């Protein structure tokens, strides 16, 4: 019998979902991951944002136990992914970047079958409804659209009622409408307390879903934190422009007041801008080593 005191939600080991120190992985001449640190808490939605080839899939697949790392320290739900156990796998949900399998089974058959792998599976019908495939439940997967197929992937990712869900570029190729619906689905899962790690190369997706983001480029983290303050966005100087002038300043209000006095009222062509997240992101991923 395990004593009740064993529940200590404040104990470090119990709140950390993912711990990564100095992770590296090399393919021939390509340093796919070049020294990565990550600390992701249980219950968090964490986005790994970066352009194609940045090392997102390599990183995530190392965390999922698919690929071997060259060096570094990795713990996922307290386990080294290179020594996976069935119990550990039962707590993970994985949505890979690409999959074309099980084409001849229907949505319902596939989801029911995968439910049997897990000790604490969710109700298949409930999961089908949650991902919005109720009407397609008896259609063979081969006949689904790309977006619908991706929903099957997510359904299979959550069918085992995971503590930790990985999503590798879940909305690539979606139209804007499908992407919004998908975001709602992810927000719903997050609200239920599932820890979610997603990779994306869409900035708006990271901003919409995650409280914390790591921007990676060429296998390294180039910025991390709240998307709103990423790369010093909140503290960056504001740019005040008007008909015949431009000033970068920490105190744009004072500048505007002075200008207003100088022009005696309306300032012609007045605009105040701060760098958008997009601007910051592009600077970050383009910056040389």
């Amino acid at each position: 019998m395990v004593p009740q005191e064993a529940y200590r939600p404040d104990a470090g080991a119990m709140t950390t979902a993912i711990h990564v120190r100095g992770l590296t992985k090399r393919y021939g001449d390509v340093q796919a991951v070049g020294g990565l640190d990550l600390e992701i808490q249980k219950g968090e939605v964490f986005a790994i944002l970066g352009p194609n080839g940045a090392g997102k899939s390599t990183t995530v697949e190392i965390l999922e136990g698919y690929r071997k790392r060259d060096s570094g320290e990795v713990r996922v739900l307290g386990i080294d992914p290179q020594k996976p156990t069935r119990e550990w796998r039962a707590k993970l949900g994985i949505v890979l970047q690409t999959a074309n399998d099980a084409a001849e089974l229907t949505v319902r058959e596939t989801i029911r079958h995968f439910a049997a792998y897990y000790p604490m599976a969710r109700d298949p019908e409930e999961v089908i409804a949650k991902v919005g495939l109720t009407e397609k439940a008896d259609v063979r997967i081969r006949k689904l659209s790309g977006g619908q197929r991706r929903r099957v992937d997510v359904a299979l990712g959550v069918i085992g009622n995971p503590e930790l869900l990985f999503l590798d570029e879940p909305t690539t190729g979606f139209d804007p409408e499908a992407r919004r619906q998908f975001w709602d689905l992810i927000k719903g899962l997050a609200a239920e307390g599932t820890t979610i790690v997603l990779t994306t190369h869409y900035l708006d997706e990271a901003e919409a879903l995650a409280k914390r983001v790591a921007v990676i480029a060429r296998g390294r983290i180039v910025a991390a934190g709240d998307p709103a303050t990423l790369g010093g966005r909140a503290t960056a100087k504001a740019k005040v422009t008007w008909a015949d002038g431009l000033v970068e300043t920490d105190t744009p209000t004072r500048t505007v007041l002075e200008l207003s006095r100088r022009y005696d009222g309306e300032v012609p062509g007045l605009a105040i801008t701060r760098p958008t997240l997009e601007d910051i992101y592009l600077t970050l991923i383009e910056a040389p080593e």
Partner: protein
Amino acid sequence: MTTTAAEKATHTAPLPSALALGLSRAAVETRMFFREKDAVIFTFSFPIILLVLFGSIFSDQFKGTGITVSQVYTAGLIGAGVMGAAFQNLGIGIAIDREDGTLKRLAGTPMPRSAYFVGKMLSSLVIALLEVLILLAIGVFLYELELPTDVSAWVTLTWVLVLGMAGAALLGIAASSIPRSAKSAAAVISMPFVVLQFISGVYIPFTELPPWLINISSVFPLKWMCQGLRSVFLGEEGARLELTGSYELGRVALVLGAWVIGGLVLCLMTFRWKGRRDG
């Protein structure tokens, strides 16, 4: 195994058993196979068409035996059919599973890996049995093949089919790692299989083959499976048509059994859960 309180709190139920999941995989694999029309036609049609074709072309009897050439073909093509359903079907099917993400997805779940192989073996057993039944029916109704009447022949039929199927299936699982891609799998797996059929006495009697070819085919399970099947369907007078004048059932069992064990070792040593581009 000790579990922490947190694990107890969230995952109290035990993991499903490997056997139950193996059976569940077998059901799913079989269903997928029969829904894929191309694969069904590819697997079933070849031996059936050849049997009908050869049976119509060669209707002679072997001198002084009362055995027709088409009866010999029926026995041989049952062996080839079993090997097609097990070796060829699995070799190509698993290469496709490796490329389309089936293996990768399964490896990410708590499914025990053995369940995948149990599913593949059982589903190819079902497919092979169905093929045997169809070929037997054709043999009996069109070519006066006689079903054995004594129990010992049925016992022989059972062990020859089970051992032959298992050996061929394991060989197919091992061979699935050879093709570089799913596209090339059909060619890479089928070519050697077709050659093997020609040198294993399925189409051409051993008496017509040079000894060095017979030596090669004697290494592989198909020759021995066909020999065991002839013992069941052609009876004692047919033994005279064998090279050694006997069906050598002891050796058949030995070679097929060795292939089951060898195939298992080969699978354990060489099986790749990853495709070549999976990192």
